[in-house]
């Protein structure tokens, strides 16, 4: 713990609906940095897909972010971008939202892992 306090930790960013963002920011993950850049994005029905995509790519490029939390229904909208991320950092975690319960069959990483157990590849 002492070691942790000496080094500044990395951020957890959030892309999701209002309740997800309000909740996790209430939990303390939110930050506005010196350049006035936030580490969260509230997505509603009027948010353009390109905006979500740009924000997600911006978070991927930031070296002060270690984990990106994204609502699974939002991840579905930009699935091609989420699937193309292969690096372990930042880790992308698909989380449920109020209206969309967690579905492991849609999860990018789990789908990739399950795909490995294709009987043709096993032998």
């Amino acid at each position, binding site marked *: *713990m002492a070691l*942790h*306090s000496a*080094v*500044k*930790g*990395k*951020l*957890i960013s959030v892309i999701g609906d*209002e*309740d*997800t*963002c*309000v*909740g*996790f*920011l*209430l*939990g*303390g*993950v*939110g*930050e*506005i*940095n*010196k350049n*006035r*850049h*936030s*580490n*969260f994005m*509230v997505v509603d029905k009027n948010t353009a897909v390109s905006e979500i995509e740009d924000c997600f790519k911006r978070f991927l490029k930031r070296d002060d972010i*270690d*984990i990106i*939390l994204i609502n699974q229904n939002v991840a579905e909208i930009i699935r091609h971008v989420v699937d193309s991320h292969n690096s*372990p*950092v930042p*880790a992308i*975690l698909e*989380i*449920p939202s*109020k209206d969309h*319960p*967690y579905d*492991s069959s849609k999860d990018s*990483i*789990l789908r*990739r*892992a*399950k795909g*490995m*157990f294709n009987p043709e*590849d*096993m032998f």
Partner: protein
Amino acid sequence: MDENELEKICDTLDRLTLDALTLIQEEIELKVNAENAMIGGETHLAKTRYILGQNSVSSLQLPSENSSEFEALTVVHSSTDDFGSKRFDLESYKPDNEVYMNPIKWFGFMPPQNLHFAQNLYRQALQWIVQAANVQTKLEETCVQIKQLQGLKRKLTTTKS
């Protein structure tokens, strides 16, 4: 020699496959735990809205790019263990009203008890999520190892035949 090597690769593949299946199950369980904590948090947010009014707990209260800068209360530290696996650890700082502000104050200075309950539940969800992130990283590493071994096995079996 090749026969022995092939057997070793098959054994390791069996073990790694079992590991991957266990990790998949573990990750799903952790995410379900996080989901339950989030559902609890959402219920308390709804109760707070009932007490304070519909727009009292919304994105309008969240800081925007025009707000003054502030640092995150909860951050993650990543480390690499002896086997080269990445691990995330959660750290929360105590709010001091200078560098680290308690986010609950965005919603008024006398927030209802339900907002405190919601805050605690979302903190719990974060703990589950960071654990899920660790399991997910391990799963990705296991999948890479499985892929490498499958390639090696394919190479050995084709040279044999």
